[in-house]
Every structure is written in structure tokens, then in C-alpha cells.
């Protein structure tokens, strides 16, 4: 098959009338594009960490702070002139103390934390599945 015939075939095929979809085809595609966009936006808007997580975190920080303060009460009465030179050693002592007290957190406090976590988890689970029962 020579090149000229190939060119002629190309010219002939350029006259080919393609099949056409319905008139509203573009509109339907664009409607679906909008739906896809909205779905994507919803996924993006969903918070990875829920409210419950932040409540637990705040409670935990408060608990840590309380333990730390309680551990320092014995040394609070000391004179302020000795505070600055002792800062470094007190910092490390403080950290050690907090870590030490962590091991002695009363079972009741731990129980409260676990219970509140459980309640929050149940609350989230029920909320997320509400749609199933509507």
C-alpha cells in the first residue's frame, strides 16, 4: 500500500461522521462532576480527631498538672533566693517525680478516665450509626 493511497484514506476517513451521544450528555457529566466534588469536600471536612479525643486529652493534661503541683507542695515553702540556682536540678527532679507519681495514680482516677473514655466511645459509635436507624 503506497503512501499516496494512505493519504487518500486519511482524507476519506476525515469525512467520517462519528456517533453522537444525547444532547444533554455534557450536562449529565458535569452534574456527576459536581456530585463527585461534593463527596470529596465532605470527606475533606470530616475531622480525623473527634471531640471526644480532645476532651480525653484535656483531662489527661489536667491530671498530669495536678500530680505535678501536688508533688511540688513540699518544696514551695523554700526561699526564692535559692530557686534560680536550683532550677535545673529541680526541673529534672520534677520530671522524675511526675514519672514516679504516674505509677502511683490511684485506681479510682484511672477508673474514672477509662469510664469516661468508654462513654465517649459509645457516644460516638451511637452518633455515627444513627443514620442506620432513621
Amino acid at each position: 500500500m503506497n503512501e499516496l493511497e494512505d493519504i487518500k484514506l486519511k482524507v476519506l476517513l476525515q469525512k467520517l461522521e462519528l456517533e453522537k451521544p444525547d444532547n444533554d450528555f455534557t450536562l449529565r457529566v458535569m452534574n456527576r462532576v459536581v456530585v463527585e466534588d461534593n463527596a470529596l469536600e465532605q470527606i475533606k471536612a470530616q475531622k480525623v480527631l473527634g471531640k471526644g479525643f480532645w476532651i480525653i486529652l484535656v483531662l489527661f493534661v489536667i491530671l498530669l498538672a495536678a500530680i505535678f503541683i501536688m508533688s511540688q507542695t513540699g518544696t514551695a515553702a523554700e526561699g526564692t533566693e535559692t530557686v534560680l540556682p536550683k532550677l535545673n536540678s529541680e526541673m529534672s527532679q520534677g520530671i522524675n517525680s511526675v514519672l514516679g507519681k504516674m505509677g502511683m495514680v490511684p485506681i479510682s482516677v484511672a477508673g474514672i478516665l477509662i469510664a469516661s473514655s468508654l462513654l465517649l466511645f459509645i457516644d460516638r459509635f451511637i452518633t455515627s450509626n444513627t443514620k442506620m436507624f432513621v
Partner: protein
Amino acid sequence: MEYKDDNYYVEMVKSGQTAQYSYIVDKYKNIVFSIAMKVLKNREDAEEMAQESFIKAYKSLHTFKGSAKFSTWLYRITYNTCISELRKRKVHFTSTEEVQIKDEAQEMNLDGIPEENRAVVIKEAMSRLPEDEYTLVLLYYFEEQSIDEISRVTGLSESNAKVKLFRARKKLYTILNEIMKDELYTIL
């Protein structure tokens, strides 16, 4: 309305101007639908798959880097979507009516086709080609895609695409010959 380069619209859509995607859909809807129609042989299914192809392309537009032509990328998505749909339905991708290539096919004089009948004759001839060969001829002659681009769309190797295109061209000539003979008999 002045049509700009495909990449211009692609970049606009990527930057959040979703409405610009309608230019791309408008430009390519007929060829995408034609490929889907040829493979699926049903108007409703073809519309659904053509739509699906455009949505898939939209969703993965961020992966299109512009190293190849946008049309090549879109046709590959269309082709794969239609073939996957056929596989789902467990329909084999073969022609129902195999055209026998004849020696005289090479002697076909395209100038012999009357000007006023050309569009009808070529449409009829193309409709008789099997799905894969129709796609090859359509992309090479109508869309003026290179062998490299066609091999990217169809997943064939370049040499295989060349061989298949050669065979498809011969078949097309055979069909055109048959149509012209039939027309001649009708006139006589």
C-alpha cells in the same frame, strides 16, 4: 467560541475551575462515545461508559502530567473502561463477523467512490470492522494519532499495533470494495 489547547483547560480544572471541564467533555464526547458504542454495541451502555470514562478522567486529572497528549490519556481511560465492562459481562472482545481479506483490496481506487456518497460509504465500512481494528483506524486516520500513541491507548506493542493497523487497513479496503461492487450492481 475560541478553543484553546487541551492543557489550558486541564490546568484550569486542576486549579479549581471545575466548569471548564465541560469544554473537554464537549470536544471529546463524540469520539469517546463512538469507541464505547463500537465496543459495547448498545447506545445506553455506551452512554454510561462514556460518562464513566469522563468521570474517571476527572477524578485522576491530578495524575495527568502533560507529558503525553491529553487525548491519548483520555482514550486510554475510555478503552480500558469499555474493555473492563466487557470482561465484567464475560463477553469476549472479538468480532461477530470476520471479514476475509482479499488480494484485490490493495487495488481499490478510493477516487472511484462518488464524492456525495463518501461519508455514508466510509461510515458503513467502518461499522463492519471489528472493535479493536475500528479503534486503531479511528485513532490513526481520524484522530491522527501516532503508532506510539496508539500503542499507549490500546496497550499493544508498537510493532503489534503496526501489524494490526496494516491488517485493519486491508480489511477496510476489502469492505470498501464490496460496498462499491454492491452499489454498482444496484445501478446496473
